[in-house]
């Protein structure tokens, strides 16, 4: 049978391969040095660039076997320059170990577990250049992984040793020095220490070396600059800016990777201190270069979109500049390509998100290109990172009030996939989806019904009970925005699903930011139709009591503001409602405790003072029959005296004092 013979053939092939693998391993432990050496060389050739083979050799114990050979050879090495065979064994063993570690974390872990690290370090001080080179190459591979041990710059003589590496004429050794910095320099103390030791000057010199040395130096420079204003300032000011100019020049390099790393370096400098790199020509060149690199088909392209995001994130001037060079169109054209690698897909979506985060012109362009359709498709991508990025992109675009008012987002094609993501197994996807939903439910027309129809409210209420505080926060945020100026039917539905007791418990949530959103939600629920005020009186006024309690103990201004607007809105109701608010305001006065309203009226925060004054205005307005009685009570409690003192009696201009 063809099937049977084929299976047999495959099995035979596999067996042959296993036999060959174990054959090499057997020879690695041979007592014949020549056999051992040849096995090392064969092993090296087999695993180069082949992850599957690396893995299968590692599974069979190749790591400890090669480590043992290296240890034995290092021990036997007496520094005699003429013992070439032993040195060749060292070189081959180090090369095999480096190959296992090259771009492969499993390999790095196996090599480290085999305890080779001290022996590889010893090779750096060998008198034989080939041995030093092999050791440096191997260590460089290890230091490119996050799993490499942290190099302690603060330890005595370690910086001295690092400088000796950087000073080496061997490019692999100086490159190792750069890799160690990139991997291990994390704190501002370490950055300053390296700067003071003159490491930056060495790295700038290394920029004149080979492309690979240049690249690793650029990475190290960015590591030392990152978020360290002092180091960046000193660097930019040094040598009349010549060092900075040399990095700017590399943005035009012929190698894509060098252009990207030089750009990263400049982005880090600019993000650390925006006052640098203000030259429009440099900014334009930088933006153009990074944008062009997004189109690179390799790893550079994958990373370039993240560099682009970092360049423009939170910076309106850079977003405007990028918009003017058609960044939205260019990013979108990359998004349209087939079979995008998830990492690249994610990066482009995040770059578009940053582009649309502040400027309406960017959002308009994005929507006019019909890019929304591609992003909606991405909501169902297999990769959770892509789904999250798609949500973040939609969140930015949906900040457009102009388009929210036009109902561009509140339609089934957008709403349904987003509501589905509320059940996503990934928390970050859920949170990102809640972020978009929070925006799109601010629908100024009456289209909220489609969201309710697809079970959106039920889902949000369910998530408001989550054990995860971030999910509770975002679910409440969405409900708050959904009820902003909403029709009664919508608000009633939300309140029915939530229930008074759940809302009261959310007002008293352990997390302050959840309390704030819960109070803001209640504020919206009691706005609009006068009957909506009633909801805070349900279940014996459990919500109103919770609001009063939170206001008395509020540590955060925002809680005070939202809570006072709840009371202020309730105080626009009937006499009964106004009296209930009075009770809340004065409940602590009877016990001699200072009422929060007095504290709020004296607050340094004008927003809080404003909210407090509106509550008093609504209670004492002549439109209410019991207004004069309330004035007396508030005066007796010292509230009106305070209000006079802060000059806030004007019913309309309370925000400006």
């Amino acid at each position, binding site marked *: 049978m063809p099937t049977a013979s084929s299976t047999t053939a495959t099995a035979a092939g596999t067996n042959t391969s296993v036999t060959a693998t174990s054959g090499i391993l057997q020879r690695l432990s041979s007592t014949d040095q020549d056999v051992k050496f040849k096995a090392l060389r064969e092993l090296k050739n087999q695993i180069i660039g082949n992850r599957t083979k690396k893995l299968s050799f590692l599974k069979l114990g190749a790591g400890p076997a090669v480590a043992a050979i290296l240890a034995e050879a290092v021990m036997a090495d007496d520094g005699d320059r003429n013992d070439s065979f032993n040195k060749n064994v060292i070189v081959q063993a180090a090369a095999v170990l480096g190959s296992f570690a090259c771009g492969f974390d499993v390999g790095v872990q196996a090599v480290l577990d085999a305890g080779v690290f001290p022996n590889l370090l010893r090779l750096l001080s060998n008198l034989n250049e080939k041995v030093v080179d092999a050791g440096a190459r191997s260590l460089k591979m290890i230091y490119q992984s996050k799993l490499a041990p942290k190099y302690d710059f603060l330890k005595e003589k370690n910086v001295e040793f690092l400088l000796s590496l950087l000073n080496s004429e061997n490019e692999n050794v100086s490159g190792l020095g750069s890799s160690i910095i990139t991997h291990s320099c994390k704190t501002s103390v370490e950055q300053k220490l390296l700067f003071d030791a003159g490491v930056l000057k060495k790295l700038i010199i290394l920029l004149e070396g080979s492309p690979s040395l240049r690249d690793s130096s650029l990475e190290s420079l960015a590591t030392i600059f990152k978020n360290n204003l002092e180091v960046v300032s000193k660097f930019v000011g040094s040598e009349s800016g010549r060092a900075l100019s040399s990095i700017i020049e590399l943005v035009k390099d012929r190698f894509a990777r060098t252009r990207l790393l030089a750009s990263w370096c400049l982005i880090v400098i600019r993000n650390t201190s925006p006052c640098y790199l203000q030259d429009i020509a440099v900014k334009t060149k930088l933006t153009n270069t990074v944008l062009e690199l997004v189109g690179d088909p390799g790893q550079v392209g994958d990373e370039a979109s993240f560099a682009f995001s970092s360049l423009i994130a939170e910076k*309106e001037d850079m977003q405007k500049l990028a918009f003017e060079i058609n960044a939205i169109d260019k990013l979108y054209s990359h998004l349209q390509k087939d079979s995008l690698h998830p990492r690249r897909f994610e990066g482009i979506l995040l770059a578009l998100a940053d582009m649309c985060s*502040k*400027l*309406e*012109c960017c*959002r*308009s362009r994005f929507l006019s290109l019909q890019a929304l359709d591609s992003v909606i498709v991405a909501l169902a991508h297999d990769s959770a990172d892509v789904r999250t990025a798609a949500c973040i992109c939609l*969140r930015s675009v*949906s*900040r*457009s*009030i*102009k388009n929210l*008012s*036009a109902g561009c987002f509140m339609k089934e094609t957008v709403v349904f996939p987003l509501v589905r993501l509320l059940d996503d197994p990934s928390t970050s996807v859920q949170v990102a989806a809640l*972020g*978009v939903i*929070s*925006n799109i439910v*601010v629908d*100024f*027309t009456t289209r909220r019904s489609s969201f309710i129809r697809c079970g959106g409210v039920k889902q949000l209420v369910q998530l408001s009970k989550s054990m995860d505080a971030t999910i509770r926060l975002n679910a409440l*945020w969405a409900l*708050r*925005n959904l*009820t*902003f*100026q909403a029709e009664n039917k919508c608000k009633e539905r939300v309140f029915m699903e939530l229930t008074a007791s759940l809302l009261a418990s959310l007002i008293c949530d352990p997390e302050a930011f959840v309390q704030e959103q819960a109070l*803001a939600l209640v*504020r*919206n629920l*009691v*706005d*609009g139709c*006068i009957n909506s005020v009633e909801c805070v009186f349900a279940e014996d006024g459990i919500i109103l009591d919770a609001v009063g309690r939170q206001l008395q103990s509020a540590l955060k201004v925002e809680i005070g*503001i939202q809570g006072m*607007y709840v009371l*202020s*809105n309730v*105080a*626009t*109701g*009937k006499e009964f409602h*106004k009296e209930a608010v009075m009770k809340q305001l004065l409940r602590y006065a009877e016990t001699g405790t200072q009422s929060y309203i007095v504290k709020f009226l004296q607050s340094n*925060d*004008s*927003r809080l003072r*404003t909210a407090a004054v*509106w509550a008093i*205005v*609504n*209670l004492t*307005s002549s*439109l*209410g029959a019991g207004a004069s009685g309330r004035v007396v009570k508030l005066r007796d409690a010292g509230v009106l005296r305070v209000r006079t003192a802060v000059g806030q009696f004007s019913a*309309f*201009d*309370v*925000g*400006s004092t």
Partner: protein
Amino acid sequence: MTLWAYYWAILYRAMEPKTVQVRRIKSVDQEMPVRVVESSAHSQVSGANSGQTSPPACTLLSVGQAFSGTQNVSNLQKEEAWRVNVRIQGCDLEHGYLCGTMEALNVPMADTPVVTFWEGEIVDTKNYTFYTGKWEATPEDDIRHWTKFPSFQSLLTRVEIDGGKSLDLSNYPYIFMRWKEQYFVNVGTDCGLTIAGFYYVCFSCSDGSINGFYYDPNSSPFQKLELKTTNEGRSGFSFSSYELQ
């Protein structure tokens, strides 16, 4: 509580002389507001560039607030005023941006109330000055309209120099704006109305009232918009809020 004036200009197109046209302006690209609560204490700028500040935060000019009143569209032939409702939907003092909707009731030839979305430029002398610089409005047109507001008179001399760039309006009790309608919300562009012109607007921080004058070179001049805050049947003022993420 009170009615609000809306301001519509009636124009008969040269080609379609019987069509009723509503005049509105177009907008600028601006950052959308994310936080909508009132901003905290106003910044004070000293020196020659005083005036590079935000206008006073005012609760009555915040999102969700509703205004109602009339727009006087009288012409030589007849006296006429349309009822108008306005609601603020977005406000970003930092960028001098405001937006919302206008609803015009009892519009002749329209079967239903006509709702439009508008965007506003707040004259804060940082983002925008008193000079419009677009929408077919010359500095002379600007001055002619601004001077219709009594609260503008004290600013006139400085505005004539540089559009008011050197003024500090951060504590001025009035907020000057331009409102430009962008699109029809509930009717199509074939509804017989048009939104070509824009409004010069003055908001009073002390009583929340809004006055405006409609400008369109092809329309009868100085049509007046008069709006007042409304509490929508409540015994006091109620405020809701949203916050974009």
